[in-house]
C-alpha cells in the first residue's frame, strides 16, 4: 500500500513499509505512545542520504566470458547518464581469467575506467559476491548487471527518471530476451553469434502475485534502493545455489513496493549450447532453491500492493471454478455419460471425414 507525499512539483511514491506506518498513524484514536514510536520509525526508514552517485552497478564475473564482458562494459560506457559507479566482482576467477578481466578494465577510457572498482571474492554461492558488492556500494540505488548481458543507452537514465518520483521503492524496467550461440570468431576468439531479434518476453508491468509463482524479471530489470540493504539490513541469501535474484526481488518488493519504468532498457542473453546458470546447476539445485525462496516467503508477514485484494478475489474465483470442474469430472453422472460422449465424438469424426471427402470431389 504505497502512500504518497505531496511535494511542490511532483508526487513522490514512498515505500510499502512507509505506507503501512502512514496508514496506522491515520487512525484518529491511535495511542499517542504508538504514534510517537511510529514517527520514530518513519524517521528511521527515511531514505538515507548518499554522497555517492545515483547508481552502483554490481557486475559479477568469473573471468570465463571475456568477449561478452567487453560488450557489457561498453554498454555501461555508452549510457546517456553516467551518474554511476561500477563494482566488478571477480568471483573465483582462475588466474588467467582474473588477469584478463583486469586488463580489460585497465584498457577503458579514463573518464569511465576511473569509476570502476574491482572486488575479489573467493568461495560461496552466487549470492556471496553480491553481498560483498552491496557493502562496497555508495550509490542511492544498486543494480546487478551480469557479465554476459546488454544494456540500452537509457538503462541508467530511465531509472533516474522514475526515481525522481519514487522514494525507497524498487524500480523495474522491461528487459528483452535474445538468443546467442557460442562461436569461434574469425580471429580465433571464443565469441558468439547472435541468432534472434530481441523479444519482449517479460511483462511490462510488475505483478506481485505472479512473481510469487515464478520470476518474470531478470536481474538487470531492477534498481534496488539503498535503504533495502542499509536501513532494513537485507542481504542476499548465501545458502541459495540459484534464485538469489528472485529471493531478493520478492523480499524487497513486498517490503518496499515497486515502480515500473515502462521502457525497454536491457537485453537478457539466452545462451544456446553454452554454459549458463541453467546448465551450471542441476535440476535438484534449482528445485531446492525455489522451494527455499517459497518457504521463506511463506513464513514471513507480507505487505501487498494496492489492488491485491481484487487480484486475490479473481484468483479465488478461478480456484472455485477449478473445484467445480474437478467435482464434475469425478461425479457419477459424468462416469455414466461416458458412452454417450464417445458416441457424440464418433458422430463428429464421421461428419468431418464425410466433409473432407465431399470437398475433394468438388475440387
Amino acid at each position, binding site marked *: 500500500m504505497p502512500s504518497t507525499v505531496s511535494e511542490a512539483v511532483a508526487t513522490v511514491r514512498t515505500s510499502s513499509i512507509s505506507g503501512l506506518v502512514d496508514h496506522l498513524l491515520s487512525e484518529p484514536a491511535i495511542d499517542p505512545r504508538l504514534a510517537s514510536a511510529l514517527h520514530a520509525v518513519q524517521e528511521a526508514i527515511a531514505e538515507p542520504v548518499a554522497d555517492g552517485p545515483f547508481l552502483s552497478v554490481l557486475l559479477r564475473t568469473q573471468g570465463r566470458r571475456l568477449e561478452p564482458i567487453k560488450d557489457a562494459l561498453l554498454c555501461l560506457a555508452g549510457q546517456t547518464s553516467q551518474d554511476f559507479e561500477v563494482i566488478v566482482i571477480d568471483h573465483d576467477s582462475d588466474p588467467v581469467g582474473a588477469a584478463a578481466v583486469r586488463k580489460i578494465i585497465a584498457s577503458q577510457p579514463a573518464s569511465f575506467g576511473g569509476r570502476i572498482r574491482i572486488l575479489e571474492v573467493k568461495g560461496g554461492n552466487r549470492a556471496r559476491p553480491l553481498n560483498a558488492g552491496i557493502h562496497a556500494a555508495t550509490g542511492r540505488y544498486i543494480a546487478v548487471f551480469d557479465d554476459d548481458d*546488454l544494456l540500452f543507452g537509457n538503462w541508467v537514465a530511465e531509472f533516474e527518471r522514475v526515481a525522481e518520483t519514487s522514494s525507497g521503492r524498487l524500480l523495474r524496467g522491461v528487459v528483452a530476451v535474445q538468443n546467442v550461440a557460442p562461436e569461434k570468431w574469425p580471429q580465433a576468439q571464443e565469441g558468439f553469434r547472435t541468432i534472434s531479434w530481441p523479444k519482449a518476453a517479460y511483462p511490462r508491468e510488475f505483478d506481485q502475485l505472479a512473481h510469487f509463482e515464478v520470476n518474470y524479471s531478470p536481474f538487470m530489470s531492477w534498481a534496488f534502493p539503498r535503504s533495502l540493504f542499509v536501513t532494513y539490513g537485507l542481504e542476499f541469501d548465501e545458502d541459495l545455489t540459484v534464485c538469489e535474484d528472485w529471493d531478493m526481488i520478492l523480499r524487497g518488493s513486498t517490503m518496499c513496493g515497486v515502480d515500473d519504468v515502462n521502457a525497454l532498457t536491457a*537485453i537478457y542473453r539466452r545462451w544456446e549450447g553454452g554454459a549458463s546458470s541453467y546448465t551450471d546447476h542441476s535440476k535438484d539445485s534449482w528445485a531446492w532453491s525455489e522451494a527455499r525462496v517459497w518457504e521463506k516467503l511463506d513464513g514471513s508477514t507480507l505487505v501487498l500492493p494496492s489492488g491485491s485484494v481484487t487480484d486475490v478475489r479473481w484468483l479465488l474465483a478461478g480456484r472455485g471454478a477449478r473445484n467445480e470442474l474437478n467435482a464434475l469430472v469425478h461425479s457419477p453422472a459424468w462416469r455414466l455419460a461416458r458412452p454417450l460422449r464417445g458416441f457424440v465424438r464418433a458422430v463428429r469424426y464421421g461428419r468431418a471425414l464425410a466433409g473432407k471427402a465431399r470437398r475433394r470431389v468438388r475440387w
Partner: protein
Amino acid sequence: MPDVRSLVVQSVLFGNAPREIVRAAEAVATSVKWARAEGLIGEWSLLLGDCSDVEVLDASHQADIRSLVLDQGGSFEYHVFGANLGSAAGHNALAPKAVSDLILILNPDAVVAPDAVEALARVVVGSVGIAEARQVPLEHPKDYEVATGNTSWASTACALTPRLAFDRVHGFDSKTFFLYCDDVDYSWQLRLAGYRVVYEPAARVFHDKRLTVTADWPASSAEVYFSAEAAIFLAHKYSRPDLVSKLVRQFRAEGTEVARKVVESFERRRSEGTLPLPVDSSHTVAQFIGGNYAVHRF
C-alpha cells in the same frame, strides 16, 4: 603482422549533443592508443565535419577534444560545412582534408570499444576493402561467414577502409544516396572492384539505438522516407528494373504521403536523367532479399 599505418578517423555531425561528441572522441582516442601500442597504427588524426545549422562544438568542447587526441599522439580538425550535406557527402568532403593509409568512418556519437581499432586494423589487410565493427546493444542481423567474416555489405556506423579502396571507388555516391544505403552501395562498389567486405565481431561499437517497450523498431519519418527512396535507387543502380517497377507499384498502392514523395523523387530523377548508370548487370554482388540487402540471421 600488418605494417604500421596512418589513420584518419572521420565523423559527420548534425545537431548532436556536444557531451556525446567529446565522449566519443575520448573512446576513439583510447582505442587508437591501444592500436598504436600494438604497432598497428602510427600517425593519426580525428576529423569532424559539422553539417548543423548551429555549430555543435564551442571553443571549450573543441579544446577538450583536441586535448584528448593530442594526449594519444594525434591531431584534431573541426570543419564547419554550414549545410546539411548528409553523411555520404559529408564523408566525401572530409576525406581529402587529410592523408592516411586508413579511414575509420564513424558515427559521431558512437562509442568504440578500447580494442575496436586494433581488431579492425588487424583484418583490413590484403583484399579487404572495408571491415565493419559489431554494433551493440542492437546487432545488425546480416549474416556473415564464420571463418572469414565475409558479408554482403558493411554498415558505416563504425567501419575501417583503406584510403586506396576509398579513392578507387570515388568514395560514397552522395548524388544518389543522401542518408541511407550509401554504405550498402559503397560496399558493393568495393566488391565489384575486387575487394572483400568483412564483418569483424571482435570489434565492437556502442551505437545508441533503442527499441519500443514491445521490442519493435521505432522508425522515424525521415528513416521511412530515406530508406524507401534508397531502396528504389539501389534497385535501379544495381540493374534490377523488375524490382524498381515492383517498388514503384508497391509505393503507389500504399498511397501514403511518404510513398508518393518517394515515387515522385525517383520519377523526377529519371526524367532529369540524373539517375546513376546501372552497374552489376550480371548480379554478382547485389542482393535484394525480402527488402534486405543480405541474407539475415534473424
